[in-house]
């Protein structure tokens, strides 16, 4: 019972949506399911957030190594939550100035906006920008002409790197117009439109088949590891 009902729900939910895709009247069901999913995910925040609090509070009460950082996390978490849910310093909407809660929670000047602008944004953007360094070290370490495949990989990367800057002009700018196809910026475009297109298409087709087979296994109950304990 504990296993059959979930399996049944999975199969029903999936097959209904597959069939709905072909019936004009029900083609919108997929979108409804997507909205429902968002609602469910938002409710699940209670689980995730609760878990976050639990872990860090536990660290603090156990005085585990680095518990002070947990204090920072919890303060940051609660402060942001309060600022956002409470719409702190967030002016009302222009249409309804008399209703304090009518404004947007991220209105410029609100506390939530401040946290977004001066904490969320710099922290995440800096994290993202660290990739510039990692890309360099990966290129140094991994792009070595060990075999023909590796040569293709690094050769292409090489051409694109050059072709996408003003340097392309220095390297092949002297070529006459009749050889324009060999200019680096054009080689770049050819690689993208021909080779890259072919490779990506094959990957995409393969992925589509993989997704279809995986989905089917899930719906048929062949693959049910996510349903938790208990044979059955």
């Amino acid at each position, binding site marked *: 019972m504990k296993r059959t009902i979930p399996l049944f729900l999975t199969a029903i939910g999936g097959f209904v949506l597959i069939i709905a895709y072909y019936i004009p009247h029900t083609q919108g069901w*997929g*979108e409804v399911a*997507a*909205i429902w999913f*968002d609602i469910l995910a938002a409710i699940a925040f209670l689980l995730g957030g609760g878990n976050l609090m639990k872990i860090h509070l536990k660290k603090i009460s156990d005085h585990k190594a680095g518990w002070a950082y947990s204090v920072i996390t919890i303060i940051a978490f609660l402060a942001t939550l309060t600022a956002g849910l409470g719409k702190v310093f967030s002016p009302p*909407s*222009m*249409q*309804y100035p008399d209703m304090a809660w*009518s404004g*947007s929670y*991220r209105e*410029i000047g609100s506390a939530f906006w401040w946290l*977004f602008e001066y904490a*969320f*944004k710099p922290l*995440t*953007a800096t*994290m*993202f*920008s660290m990739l*510039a*360094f990692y*890309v*360099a*070290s990966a*290129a*140094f*370490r991994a*792009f*070595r*002409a*060990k075999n023909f495949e590796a040569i293709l990989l*690094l050769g292409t*990367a*090489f051409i694109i*790197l*050059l072709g*996408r*800057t*003003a*340097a392309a*002009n220095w390297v092949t700018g002297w070529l006459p117009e009749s050889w324009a196809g060999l200019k680096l*910026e054009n080689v770049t*475009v050819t690689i*993208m*439109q021909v080779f*890259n*297109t072919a490779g*990506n*298409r094959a990957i995409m087709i393969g992925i589509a088949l993989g997704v279809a087979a995986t989905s089917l296994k899930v719906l048929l109950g062949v693959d049910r590891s996510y349903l938790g304990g208990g044979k059955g």
Partner: protein
Amino acid sequence: MFEFFQKLDRRWIFLAMFLAVAIPIIIQLDFEETPTDLAHRVFDAIENLPDGSRVLLSFDFDPASEGELKPMATSFVYHCAAKNHKMYIMALWPVGPQMADDTIENVIKEDFPHMQYGHNYVNLGYKSGYEGVIKVIVTNFTELYSTDTRGTPWNAIPMCTGVESVQDMDLVINISAGYAGTKEWVQYAVTAYPDQIRMVAGCTGVQAPLLYPYIPHQLEGLLGAIKGAAEYEALVVEKYKLEDDPKYHEGIRRMGPQLVAHLLMIFLIILGNVIFFIEKKRGGRR
């Protein structure tokens, strides 16, 4: 010397990268841009629309990709405003509306103060649901967008009367940093209504390779990464005589550090391979 490079601590690479980007920024190094065909196509798509056309701009990015996409957003909005197009701004990413507000603040409020909210441009805001949003609005906006970000009902926004769906737009401009973005727009809007919906896009470098297969039928033009932004910027600057306004040179300006960093990358790849071959040779002798 060889030993040093062979066991090169990656922090030296980090330092080199830092300098390669920081120095050109401080000395404000920049180069002339020669726009490629794709940038021309994007520019023409907007330029050749009759003045006052309806343009849907979807801001599908967040601050993390601002470096690449904000110059595009700025130029797109400037170009549309200069052509007096009606701009319908929306977002599939939650922070998209803020990106849009920034751009409106910088471009429209400063350089086109006569443009009126609701008449010349409107910020429709964010709707959750990723491609689901696209699927709905290609046939009906009001099903999802009953109001704009300010809470004005759809029918009370002057420029929205008479607009039913994305198909009523003369052009869709998508600025995208990933999922949901250009690919979804192509799949669910352009592919579904190839005759009604035209689209150009600006995207991050990561996405660009995946979008090339869609050019030119589903996607008229594409600006890839900061290079694309700089090329397009160069076209806009040239056409609208913006040489003196540094605000519209952001992409061009950023190509300076870009070039130096690319050269560094190439040097690193070469260095890596030189080490590899010397190692191989020595190893062979042993």
